[in-house]
Structure formats: C-alpha cells, structure tokens
C-alpha cells in the first residue's frame, strides 16, 4: 500500500456536494482559463482535441461520401482536395499528436507519480494556449481559402498553389511548439518528481511511453518547425529553397518533412502502447508479462524511429544505397513492436479477464494494431513498396495504425480514466456496444482499402476508374458505421457527466497511484508524496471488490 496518510481516501466516502476536489475547488470561467492545475489543463486539452476530432471526422465522412461514385457525388475537385488536406492536418496536428500525451497524459502523469503537478505548470498552460492559437490558424486557412496541398505540404506544389498554405503551415509550426512544451515538461516531471521508492523500473508503462514520446517531441519537432518556416518564406519572399523554378530542391523538402514526420508517427502511437500496457494487467488481474522488455522497447522504437525517414522516398529518386539502409532499419522497428504485442497477449495467460469497456478497446487495439503493423512490413520491402507506394494500401496501413492504434488506444484510455477524471461512471452497456461498433466500422472502412491499393488505386483521387467502385462503397459504408459508433460513445460520455452514479476511487482494481486517491482527485492530489514499495502491477490479490461502492478497497481496510 502506498502510504498510511492516504488510506482514508482509498475507501472513497460518498461524495457530498461541498466536498473539495479539483473540479469544485474554484469556480468561474477564469478559474479554468487561467488554471495551472494539470488536471484542468488536461480536461481542456481533451475537450478541445475531441472537438477537433469531430471536425476532422466530419471531413472524413464528406470525403467518403464523395467517393461513393467514380465522378462527382457531392463536392467538386478542389473542395475535395482542400478537405482531405484539412482532414489530415487536423487529425495529425490537432488530434493524434496532442491527444494522448497532452490530454490524458496531463491528467494522469502527475497522479501516477504521486506528484502535485507537472514540473512547470505555467509552461503547461502556455502549451494549451499555443494549441488554441495553432487551431485558430488552421481554421483561418479553412475560412480564407483552405490549403489544398495534402497534410504533407510537398513542394513545389505547396509553394505555388494559390490557396492559403501559409496560415495552415503557420498553424502546424505553432502546434509544434505546443508539442515541444508538453514534451519538455514531461521529461523534467518524470526525472524530478517521482516519489520516494519509485525507481525507473517501477514506473507505470504509461509513464515509460510518455517519456519515450517526450524525447521524440523535443528532438524532432524543431525540424518540422524550421521546414515549415522555410516553406512560408519561400511562398512569401520567393527565396528559392524547395522550388526548382527559384533554384531550390523539392526532394530536400521531403527529407526535412519526413525527418520529423516519421518520428512523429511514434509520437502518435507510442503513448497508445502505454495506455494498453496499463490496461491489460489491470483487467487480467495479473502482473504484466515482460515489463522491462515492454518499457525498453518503447525507447528502442523512439530511437530507431529517427533513422527510417527515407522509407517514404523509395520512388523519389533516392539512391539505391540510401534506400536499402532505410529499408533495413525499418525492418528493425518491427522487432520491438512485435515484442510488445507478444508480451501483452502473454499477460492475459492464466489471468482473470474482465471485459469492461477499456479492455474491449485494448483487445480491439491488439487486433487492428497487429494488422497495421504487419502491413507496414509490406511497405518496408523495397520492391513491393514500388508498387504499393502512394496507393490506398498506404492509406489503409496508416489508418490501421493511427485510427486503429492511436485513436482506439485513446478511447481505451478515456474510458479507463474517465471515472478518475470526472468522478462519474458511464453506462457500461453503451460503452461496450460503442467499442464493438467502432471495431467493426474500423475494419469495414479500412480493410477494403488494402485491396483497392494493391489493385492499383492511387491515393488522393477524386475521380477513379469504375471498377474500383464496389470496394469504395464498402469502405464508405464502414465509415458511416464508424461515425455512428463515435457519436453513440460521445453522447454516452457526455450524459455520464450530468448523471449519477458517482465513481469510486478505484473502480477497476488498479494498482497505480492515481487510483489510491478519490475520484475526482483532490485539488492537490497527494498531501505528501506517497512512498512506493512495489511495482505498478503487483499484488492485485490485496484488493477486494466492495459491492456497496462498486469499487475496490484494500483487504485490510
């Protein structure tokens, strides 16, 4: 058990209206807008990210609807191009990159460390407002004359098109700083604010994942910042950097872009690994299998992720030698990734598995992430990538990883920590049904796209050959199912905040520190740093389920 001084909180007395927690501690708009509390900043981040997700998702549904027929269905060429650009930019820069670290991580990280807050609370608030500013720039581009470059901003198209590329690029630039601030904050927090007794190998796996992610955020993001700035300078001042007409080199842009954007793929998915690593042992009532391998494989992925950017450029005229080195290192990433999946599966062996909503999302994650990972191997094989590059196969692959990996993990995390963050339980039946619908929708949407791609359907196509229509229609149907699943989940979660029942301190029987304090947590989290005497997934036997409070308590209590 953590500390005698927190035992009183573990029992979670029924919450009275005047009980003091971070949600009730202060009132009024400014108490939120100027808050330095990591939990409130996390809630603001998560709300904003989910709003952006709704916007990006709406774009996706319009795009999929357009693709119901080979010619024009509802929108014209240019609108389609602008919409897939914004769909990508919003989902990448506004949703997936900040989603788990800045949203869930902000709420959970200090709690898991038994800390009162992150190391730099003001920097944390600044990061949130940079996100808002970045979002405003993105929306400015949307309102002015939305960029039509694709989220990759490839030159020289991006430096010559007449759409509002500069505001969108500026938005991504600002969002980069937001991401750096969060990363920096987390690195320092994890180094300096661990409680007594919590060595590196007693960190929850979510903390390990956030640590690996933060390293990438801090080291890689400056490169995209400077690249986008150069792009803006070229557009506005006609200084030749990337456009050959001005003496620049368009392939240089691709190198710069992917030097960030490939590691960024791991900014997006590694935090998801952390969520899954936290959930599977709790819902299997069993210690995680191969803790050290899982923890260190996150670092290995973060490191190797820096050395593979050239695999996006096998058909961009890159030399044979460079291509083969990038290909070889890309294969290496498959190993730590596979290790994680094996260890998660093995954790369930001889456990006692509870299929609550977070676990269902975690199992869905294992399924779709396995498919996303395996199809990544196809693209690492150079000769096969020549055919698959820039087709729907790639679209399907990264949606399985981003949507199926990062977003599914984010939903798992949201459902797992929801009682802790809001103090309310959601309707479990609706939660499970939502998980099922999202899982089915995801596979129906994206699996047909693998076949479309290997049959030769290029990506970013407004019109297409009639023979591709049946698979496109199936994919669009899946997207509607997916949209329905998200809508249902959103309604259920919003309703839960307004209704009883109150959540107990520890509804799932978890062992990490955030569950030793009341739900929602007190304003100062922990009165004193709780001394830690065991690992984050140890001794589930010492918790017993108390039917009266629908949560777990210490056996002795």
């Amino acid at each position, binding site marked *: 058990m953590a500390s005698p001084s927190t035992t009183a909180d573990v029992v979670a007395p029924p919450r009275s209206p005047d009980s003091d927690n971070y949600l009730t501690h202060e009132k009024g708009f400014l108490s939120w807008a100027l808050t330095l509390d990591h939990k409130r900043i996390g809630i603001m981040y998560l709300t904003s990210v989910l709003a952006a997700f709704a916007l990006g998702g709406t774009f996706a549904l319009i795009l999929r609807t357009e693709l119901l027929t080979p010619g024009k269905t509802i929108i014209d060429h240019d609108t389609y191009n602008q919409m897939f650009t914004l769909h990508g930019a919003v989902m990448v820069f506004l949703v997936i990159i900040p989603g788990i670290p800045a949203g869930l991580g902000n709420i959970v990280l200090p709690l898991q460390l038994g800390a009162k807050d992150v190391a730099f609370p003001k920097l944390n608030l600044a990061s949130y407002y940079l996100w808002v500013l970045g979002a405003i720039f993105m929306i400015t581009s949307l309102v002015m004359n939305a960029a039509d470059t694709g989220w990759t901003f490839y030159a020289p198209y991006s430096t010559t098109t007449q759409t509002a590329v500069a505001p969108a690029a500026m938005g991504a630039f600002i969002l980069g700083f937001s991401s750096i601030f969060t990363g920096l904050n987390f690195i320092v927090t994890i180094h300096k604010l661990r409680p007594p007794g919590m060595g590196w190998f007693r960190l929850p796996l979510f903390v390990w994942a956030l640590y690996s992610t933060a390293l990438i955020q801090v080291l890689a993001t400056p490169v995209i910042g400077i690249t986008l700035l150069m792009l803006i300078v070229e557009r506005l001042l006609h200084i030749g950097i990337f456009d050959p007409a001005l003496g620049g080199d*368009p392939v240089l842009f691709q190198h710069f872009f992917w030097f960030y954007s490939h590691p960024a793929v791991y900014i997006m998915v590694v935090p998801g690994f952390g969520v899954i690593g936290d959930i599977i042992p709790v819902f299997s009532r069993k210690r995680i299998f191969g803790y050290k391998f899982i923890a260190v494989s996150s670092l290995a992925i973060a490191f190797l992720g820096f050395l593979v950017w050239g695999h996006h450029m096998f058909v961009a005229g890159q030399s044979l030698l460079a291509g083969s080195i990038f290909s070889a290192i890309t294969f290496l990433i*498959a190993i730590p990734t596979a290790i994680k999946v*094996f260890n998660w599966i093995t954790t369930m062996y001889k456990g006692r598995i*509870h299929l609550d909503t977070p676990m269902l999302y975690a199992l869905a994650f294992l399924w779709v992430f396995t498919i996303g990972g395996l199809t990544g191997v196809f693209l690492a094989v150079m000769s096969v990538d020549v055919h698959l590059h*820039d087709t729907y196969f790639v679209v399907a692959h990264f949606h399985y990883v981003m949507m199926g990996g990062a977003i599914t993990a984010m939903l798992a995390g949201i459902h797992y920590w929801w009682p802790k963050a809001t103090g309310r339980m959601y309707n479990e039946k609706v939660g499970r049904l939502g998980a099922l619908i999202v899982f089915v929708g995801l596979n129906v949407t994206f699996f047909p796209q693998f076949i479309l791609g290997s049959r030769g359907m290029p990506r970013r*196509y407004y019109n297409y*050959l009639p023979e591709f229509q049946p698979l496109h229609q199936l994919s669009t149907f899946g997207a509607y199912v997916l949209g329905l699943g998200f809508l249902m989940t959103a309604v259920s979660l919003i309703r839960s905040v307004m209704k009883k029942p109150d959540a107990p301190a520890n509804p799932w029987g978890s062992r990490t520190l955030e569950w030793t304090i009341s739900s929602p947590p007190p304003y100062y989290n922990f009165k004193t740093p709780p001394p830690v005497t065991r690992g984050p997934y140890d001794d589930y036997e010492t918790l017993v389920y108390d039917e009266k409070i629908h949560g777990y308590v210490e056996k002795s209590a």
Partner: protein
Amino acid sequence: MITPVLLLQPAQNLPKFPESPTVWMPLDASVTAHDVDWLYMFMVYGSLIFAAGIFAAMVYFVKTYRAKSRVANEHAEPSSEHNTTLEITWSIIPLLVCVALFVWGFQGFVSLRTPPKGAMEIQATGQKWKWLFDYPHGTEDALHVPVNRPVRIVIHSVDVLHSLFLPNFRVKMDAIPGRYTDLWFQATQAGDFPIFCAEYCGTSHSDMLAHVIVHPPGEYEKWLAEQKRKMEDIPLPELGKLLYSKQGCSTCHSVDGSKLIGPSWKGAFGRTEHFTDGTSTAVDENYIRQSIMDPQAKIVESFPPSMPTYQGKLSDRQLLGIIEYIKSLK
C-alpha cells in the same frame, strides 16, 4: 474555390485494366512483376498465419480465463512474469523473417532499378495534368511500346511533383522538376494498360490518366512510320486538331466555349482579350504563337497563370497547325 472546376475528361478515353486472375493484384504484364507478386503473396499468407496465431491466442485466453464477476474476487493463477528464453525466441524468429524479406526486397529493387543494356529509351514529361511521351515524330499522350523489349522511361516534370505509375508492370517513379528520374520495364504481352499519376499534383490529379499501348511484335515499327507520315502529310487544321489532344491542350482549353483552366479556343481568333496587366489585344497569329512559346507574358483576366511553355517542343509546322485549328473554331 480557386480554379474553375475541370470537367471530367471524356469517358470513352478512360483506361481500363485487363481482367486479372487474382483479387489481390492487377494482371502482371512485365518481366519483373512476377517477383513482386510472389513476395507480396508470401507476405499476405505469412501475415495471415501470424495474425491468426495472435488472434487465436487472444480469443482462447479471453474464453479460458474470463473472470466470472467482480464480486467473485478471483485471482490470477500463479505463472511466471518473465521468461528470457521466450523473449529471445520471439525476438529472433521475427528478426530472421525480416532479414529474409529485406534481402528479397533488396534484390527485387535492384533489378527494378537496373535497366538492361540496350533498353529502348522514351522521354516522359509530367505536367498539370497530362503525361506526354516523346517519339521521333513528336509527342504522344499515350505510351506506345513494343512487346518483349526492355524500355527505359526517362521522367521529368515541368511544374510540380508527379509520379508515373504503371500498375500492371508494378513500376512507379516520381517526376521531379529540375531533375531526371527513370524506370524500366519489359512488357510480356500486348494490350492496353492504365497509367496513373500517383503523386498528388492539384485540381485534376485524379484525371491525370493515360494508356500504355503494348504493340505485338512488328506492329510498333509500323505504328511509328504511320505517325511520322501523318505529321508531315495531313492538312494544317487537322494537324492542329491532333496536337490539341496529344499535346495536352485539351486539359485546359475547351473547343466548345466552356470555361476550363484556360480560355476556350472556340471563337478565340479575332476576339479581344483583356490581360491582368491592364492591356488588351485582338487574338491574331502572333499572339497565339507568343501564348504558346512564352505563356506567362500575357495572362488573360480571371484565369490562373498555369500554362507551361512549349518552346522547343513544337515544330514551326505544328505551331501553324494549331493556329489554323484555332482559326477554324468559329
């Protein structure tokens, strides 16, 4: 909305895939395609086996070790929490598979990147939104090649990035302005196959389609001779009409008065055009010639400055052909 909407290109000219024997890939029609397909199918089956193992374990564990209820307070059975032998085994086996895949992929890539000596060469140009292929008699909007002969395509772009993608031959290469790239293939059967642009290039990216015409033995030379004769013999307006479709003019200029990316040619001759610099002029032979050779010199109001130059691409007779063709469009 920035540029006027481009209409669908004529439906009758859409390329079409020949019937394929498998659901996974289009028909393989080049000497290197078989290797790519073999490796692809190897990975499809390998992935299916791997994924089936993972999913079976997952489903089996969930079924076997499912807890009855929270209230029952069941505990996990004792089992080890760590096993170095197991960890090493499941690291080494995937690693070995990956090494094999890398080697096969590398070998395949080397042969895709190494055209045989003496391969026939054809220049390909990507421009918004048309592929042009160079032949001794001029350019064509379809790629014509003989069957069973290696062909190297030298690719470049005059504006933004494009990518020449021939799905039936399993080859693709980006077209980059200011740089030359290449790809090669050797068709194994005669026929008509699609070409796509695979690198996003703006408004009509998805209409940047073309045909590969693979001629049966002996037919290719006949076709070349026929084209050469056509270019020299036919009357000027007809030559202009031919060039209108083959040079990519039709992508942006209509001949029926409808507004595309550029001004329509219908009734253009003699019409007074107003330019973005405030001047205006009546369209005559010299204006048309200047618009083709130095298209950025005068931009007609309300149109984007997106036309590439044709300097060096058209002979004097071909220029005259286009001028006469425009004149004929009353």
